[in-house]
């Protein structure tokens, strides 16, 4: 630095550093202000877990009960998609993003609409689309609709609260055991001794609030079946809270249980005697009753009670100011069932149609009028509404010839029950105080927070509300937080605070080591909080929230923050060493280097600015990164020019002893070595330049080998398991599979914990809890996990472990065990991801052929056939696991082929057939019972013994609506069996089959992608082309990445994208149209 320049600087008056160094009291005030501003900003900033990404996906759901998937696809999905596509803000179709995506299931059409990324106000656009769809309601076919539009599809729940019923208490259990033992003894009285040894009592207990009339007919039917199969002396047991059978049977417990399950499956189509019932207990000796009951200990509260509790909690939480919405899932709706037998009904001259008239005649809510009495008005209210299922039995159905009444309970059986089959079941598995794992029914509540609020406050307010509720609700109800964002945010901020403290300590240590004096170290130590305070103040002003990205950015920035203060510190010391006064040195040093510091800062800021150019969800996710970084760097620049001189004045002193001269520096120590090296390099500059190119080249080569991923998997204490059953599975089969999955999970995690945590504290088990949702996905508890719609063949199991670092290590052994042990289901263990990718490797085949409607079915089948061929190629690679396509298998269905002539002659219309069959088999609503604030539907349905299995269809009678005719179904119809598609996916208007697979045990997905790509090229079958191959590599773990170099050599990935378009007009016998193809390389 030349002297002239120094002189010029010294003469400068408009120097910020000079001002701060000279007017120190003002500077202290400003320092205090900045610190205060920063603290306020930190406290006031909204804290969330994830950055707010405006939701641009809405869902449109249209039911059409009873219709098959193909018809729904043609008649409803296409219609709605065309209407939605009229909007011009839909996202254009892209390799990894869709505009309109749809799924047609039997009875349901689900469409997801995604808006363009440029749209700032999605709500308004969604409203416009909603209006258009409302107008379509009238154009839907008969029986379809209404169209339900849900623009809140993307809102993530801040808290997923699971409320589970505890198991029956010990005292209650003993009371039951006593009653049951007494009943068994009474029933066995009088039997010869020899027989007693072989008597087995099968007892099913129920919560005491459940009416036993619902269960008795089923048990009676079972008793008859037992008697027919050879069991001796079958007697029925009945008592408070239990029903059962006592019979002489041979075979061990396992065989009897298997027989019981087979009977339920095969004859009654149910899996339990009643949704609230316990598992059946097998009791041979009445003295063992308590033990037997303890094994099958059931839940204390029934589904109806849990529903009431959930309702109360939901209403209470809705009063908390920060809560915006509470959704419950897992509650099974109550119903009143009227079970009739066809013969019985016919013998009274009734038919199912007349039942609703009979009920509505009695269940009147028409007001009786109002009368003016004197000066007031008196309301007249005719009674008659029934509020209890027993009252329904007392309704007069018809009268005899002599005028005596026939009550409804004589004609059919009235039972309190639930929706059958249920739509969604929720279970919770936990460890009780004795360390025993318990599994019970549960209800989950998804609580959402208002936008831009403090999640910490949200957490405390919800806690307070729940604490108040705990005084009203039974105190043994189990509450658990399946997903707790306040906790996750607290964890994140905890991490940040720790990182900050560590950073400060490290800086001090390095400064001590580097500068070898405490003063510089203290100066640097103080500079960090001041810079951070200024940063917080700035970003709060801009409107950034404190979430994982901004916190991560601050942690990265910590390292860069100290840059400028170090330089400033060094400059001050240099000036001090040059003999200037403290005040002068304090501001002169930094001013000399002002330009250098500024450009260094600017360079750093600009290096991060390109993140602002990212578009889409990734862009929204990361938008805070460059902004926070820029603010931090700017703050550090400002601080180094303003407060560092101030503090430097007080802290820094000139060095003791003379500074080493240049000569000394050139010869001794590290600077000496560096001088020699530098001279060498300059002398042999050409060689050194070549060497540097070689290093760059090597670096590029090595860099390409690294496994890449845009974001690593999020390491959390929670992970989830998707269970996909066969397409036609009913909810009970899925529930059984989930029980098996949970057992495997418990076993594997326990084994892992025993093996790996020996030295640690083994008192706390690794597995904390399991929450499962059967028949659909959990409500959106993680922003990147899209919840599945209600689907009886799907279940989601959320697993929570105590140590978040164990999660990545558990995934592989769990996946292995689950795939090997659970038959009939595709089980995928998934970690939570920041950047959501549904499947690591997927191939999509879409049929862009314009076909006549007659060929539609054939077209779909050809598409599936091609998908199967692609799946074969995947399977041929040993690195692919769980290959499948997302359409699944075809499922057995029965079509009732009505002979129209015969039906007409018999006076039966097609509508009659449909009504008789659907109302008989599934039930038909005939009325509503109003109980306090609930509307409980009343359904009429065939008795369970007349619709237990498929063959009962031939015994069905059809009732004519226009006359009294009653004709057997076989007289006018025949049964046609077939296999039918269950799922039809469309992406951007065309049916698309996605064939996907998971890489085995952490391998590089690109390995088998590239290998299989060659097989996927246009083969001899000109119709098979590959489109849109997508893969997502594993997260890079640094040491492993190094070692996997040789393995990954085969994974060549060309960073550039290539495409080729090939269109073929070849018309082979299987191709009746042209198919376009293009291949895109693995997207990152």
């Amino acid at each position: 630095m030349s002297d002239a320049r120094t002189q010029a600087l010294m003469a400068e008056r408009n120097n910020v550093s000079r001002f701060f160094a000279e007017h120190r009291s003002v500077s202290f005030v400003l320092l205090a202000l900045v610190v205060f501003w920063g603290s306020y900003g930190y406290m006031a900033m909204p804290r969330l877990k994830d950055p707010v990404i405006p939701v641009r996906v809405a869902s449109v759901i249209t039911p059409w009960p009873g219709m098959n998937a193909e018809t729904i696809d043609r008649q409803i999905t296409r219609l709605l998609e065309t209407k939605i596509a009229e909007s011009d803000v839909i996202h254009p179709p892209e390799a990894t993003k869709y505009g309109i995506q749809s799924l047609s299931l039997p009875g349901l059409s689900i469409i997801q609409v995604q808006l363009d990324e440029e749209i700032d106000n999605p709500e308004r656009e969604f409203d416009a689309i909603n209006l258009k769809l409302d107008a379509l309601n009238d154009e839907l076919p008969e029986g379809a609709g209404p169209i339900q539009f849900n623009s809140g599809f993307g809102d993530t729940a801040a808290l997923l609260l699971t409320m589970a019923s505890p198991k029956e208490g010990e005292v209650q259990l003993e009371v039951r055991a006593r009653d049951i033992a007494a009943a068994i003894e009474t029933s066995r009285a009088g039997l010869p001794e020899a027989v007693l040894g072989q008597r087995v009592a099968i007892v099913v207990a129920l919560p005491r609030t459940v009416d036993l009339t619902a269960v008795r007919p089923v048990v009676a039917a079972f008793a008859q079946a037992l008697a027919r199969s050879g069991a001796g002396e079958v007697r029925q047991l009945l008592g408070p809270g239990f029903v059962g059978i006592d019979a002489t049977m041979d075979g061990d417990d396992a065989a009897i249980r298997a027989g019981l399950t087979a009977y339920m499956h095969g004859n009654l189509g149910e899996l339990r005697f009643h949704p609230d019932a316990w598992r059946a207990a097998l009791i041979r000796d009445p003295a063992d009753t308590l033990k037997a009951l303890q094994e099958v200990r059931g839940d204390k509260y029934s589904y109806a009670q849990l529903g009431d509790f959930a309702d109360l909690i939901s209403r209470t939480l809705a009063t908390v100011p920060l809560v915006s919405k509470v959704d419950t899932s897992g509650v099974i709706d109550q119903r009143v069932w009227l079970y009739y037998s066809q013969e019985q009904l016919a013998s009274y001259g009734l038919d199912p149609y007349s039942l609703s008239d009979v009920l509505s005649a009695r269940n009147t809510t028409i007001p009786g009028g109002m009368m003016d009495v004197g000066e007031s008005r008196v309301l007249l209210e005719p009674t008659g509404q029934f509020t209890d299922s027993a009252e329904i039995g007392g309704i007069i159905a018809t009268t005899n010839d002599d005028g005596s009444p026939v009550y409804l309970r004589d004609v059919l059986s009235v039972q309190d029950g639930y929706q059958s089959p249920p739509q969604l079941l929720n279970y919770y598995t936990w460890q009780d105080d004795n360390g025993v794992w318990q599994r019970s029914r549960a209800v989950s509540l998804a609580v959402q927070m208002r936008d831009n609020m403090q999640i910490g406050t949200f957490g405390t307010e919800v806690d307070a509300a729940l604490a108040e509720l705990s005084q009203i609700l039974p105190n043994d109800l189990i509450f658990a937080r399946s997903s707790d964002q306040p906790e996750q945010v607290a964890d994140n901020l905890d991490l940040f605070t720790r990182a900050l403290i560590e950073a400060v300590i490290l800086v001090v240590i390095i400064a001590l080591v580097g500068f070898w004096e405490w003063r510089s170290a203290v100066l640097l130590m103080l500079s960090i909080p001041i810079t951070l305070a200024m940063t917080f103040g700035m970003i709060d002003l801009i409107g950034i929230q404190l979430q994982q990205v901004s916190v991560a950015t601050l942690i990265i920035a910590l390292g860069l923050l100290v840059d400028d203060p170090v330089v400033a510190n060094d400059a001050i010391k240099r000036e001090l060493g040059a003999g200037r006064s403290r005040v002068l040195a304090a501001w002169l040093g930094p001013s000399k280097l002002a330009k250098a510091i500024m450009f260094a800062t600017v360079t750093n800021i600009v290096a991060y600015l390109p993140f602002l150019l990212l578009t889409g969800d990734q862009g929204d996710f990361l938008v805070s990164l460059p902004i926070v970084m820029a603010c931090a760097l700017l703050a550090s620049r400002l601080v180094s020019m303003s407060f560092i001189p101030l503090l430097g004045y007080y802290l820094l002193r000139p060095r003791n002893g003379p500074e080493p001269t240049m000569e000394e520096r050139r010869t001794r120590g590290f600077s000496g070595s560096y001088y020699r090296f530098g001279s060498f390099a300059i002398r042999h500059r050409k060689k050194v330049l070549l060497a540097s190119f070689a290093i760059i080249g090597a670096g590029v080569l090595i860099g390409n080998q690294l496994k890449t991923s845009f974001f690593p998997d999020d390491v959390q204490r929670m992970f989830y398991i998707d269970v996909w059953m066969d397409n036609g599975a009913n909810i009970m089969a899925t529930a059984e599979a989930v029980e098996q999955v949970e057992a495997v999970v418990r076993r594997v995690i326990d084994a892992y914990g025993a093996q790996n945590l020996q030295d640690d504290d083994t008192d706390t088990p690794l597995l904390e809890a399991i929450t499962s949702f059967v028949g659909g996905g959990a409500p959106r508890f993680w922003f990147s996990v899209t919840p599945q719609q209600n689907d009886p063949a799907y279940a989601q199991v959320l697993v929570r472990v105590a140590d978040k670092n164990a999660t990545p290590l558990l995934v592989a052994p769990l996946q292995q065990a689950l795939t090997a042990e659970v038959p009939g289901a595709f089980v995928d263990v998934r970690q939570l991801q920041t950047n959501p990718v549904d499947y690591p490797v997927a191939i999509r085949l879409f049929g862009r052929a314009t076909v006549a409607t007659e060929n539609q079915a054939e077209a779909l089948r050809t598409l599936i056939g091609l998908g199967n061929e692609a799946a074969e190629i995947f399977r041929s690679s040993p690195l692919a696991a769980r290959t499948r396509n997302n359409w699944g298998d075809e499922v057995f269905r029965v079509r009732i082929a009505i002979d129209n002539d015969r039906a007409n002659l018999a006076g039966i219309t097609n509508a009659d057939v449909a009504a008789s069959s659907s109302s008989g088999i599934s039930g038909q609503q005939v009325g509503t019972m109003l109980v306090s604030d609930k509307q409980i539907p009343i359904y009429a349905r065939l008795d369970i013994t007349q619709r237990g299995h498929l063959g009962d269809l031939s015994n069905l009678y059809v009732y004519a609506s226009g006359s009294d005719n009653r004709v057997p179904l076989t007289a006018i119809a025949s049964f046609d069996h077939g296999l039918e598609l269950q799922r039809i996916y469309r992406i951007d208007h065309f049916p698309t089959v996605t064939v996907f697979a998971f890489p085995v045990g952490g391998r590089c997905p690109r390995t088998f992608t590239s290998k299989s790509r060659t097989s996927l090229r246009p083969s001899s079958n000109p119709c098979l082309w590959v489109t849109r191959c997508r893969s997502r590599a594993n997260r890079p773990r640094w040491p492993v990445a190094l070692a996997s170099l040789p393995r990954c050599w085969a994974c060549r990935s060309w960073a550039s994208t290539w495409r080729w378009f090939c269109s073929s007009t070849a018309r082979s016998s299987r191709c009746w149209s042209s198919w376009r193809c293009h291949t895109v390389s693995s997207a990152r």
Partner: protein
Amino acid sequence: MRHLCLALLALALLAGCDEEATATNPVTPVRVEIIAETMPVEPVAYSASIVAKTQVDVSFQVDGMIQSLRQVVGADGLERNIQQGDRVAEGDVLATVDPEQYQDSVDSAQASLASAQADLANARANWERTQNLYAEQSATATDYDNAKQQYESALASVNSAAAQLDSSRDDLSYTDLTAPMDGVVLTVDVEVGTLVSPQTTGFVLADTSSVKAVFGVPDTTLGDVSVGDTLGVTTASIPDTTFDGIVTSVAPSADSSTRLFQVEVTLPNPDGRLLVGMVASLRLDQGPGAGGVPTVPVDALVRGAGDPKGYAVFVLVPGAQDDTVRLTEVAIGQVLGNRIAITSGIAAGDRIVTVGMNTIVDGQQVRVVP
């Protein structure tokens, strides 16, 4: 310094050495079932109603007011009026109409008869006298004819009066309503004091020594039932009992509104357990030669490989070291319960996959789990 750098680099590489993830694709688990021995074809159930073999409405033939009903000893030992459910024998008097007026008719008829007989006697005497006189030619022909005519007319009057008396006697006897056959009283439609007239139904009697189960079959099933077949009848009110009956009639024409043909099955009912009006059900076997066929659960069917409308199942091929599955085309028959009959493709004893079809493909190695 150089050595140090090299050493550090080597250490870093070693640190990177990790055990090869020896993850392999686990073998897919499946559940199998052994095809049971053949199951019989399930018959179709019909619902029938029980009617009496003979049922008659016993009506009055005279009018009048009912004076008394049959007295029956009731359950409490006291006598009571006859009511529904009581058994009667042929000839039992069920009800009595007030006979007074009929008695008076009889008396009056008797009196008329007596009077006519007196006239007859007189006319006869006159006739004989006139005959004698005529023979002696003391009476004119006119007298002869007159006397003859009077005699004949008196004779006719007597006959008429006798007939009148008979009729009155009949009417008197009709005041007692008797049971025409053995049976059980189904309904009692009159009370003491009811005014009845001819055609008024007083009682409905049914002979329930045997009963008939009546049901309707569509024309497609007519071939499966013919007169003389034996069918088993069950009723929900008497569980665990099957009553055997014989088909006694098949209607020659169908009911015009339902197009069903009425079939009657006669069942003996000696102990009277089957009551008229009960709802019964019976099963009709479908067609001759409906033997057994192997069956599989309905959800074990998958789409066949070749035919887009064909069906197949996965058959387990046990091997020495590993089991594999083979996709086997089958032809399906009728649904029985929750299973479906297979008419060709597999045989009893084969093991087919019942759980896990969605996770396997033809030729894949599998592992059987319980």
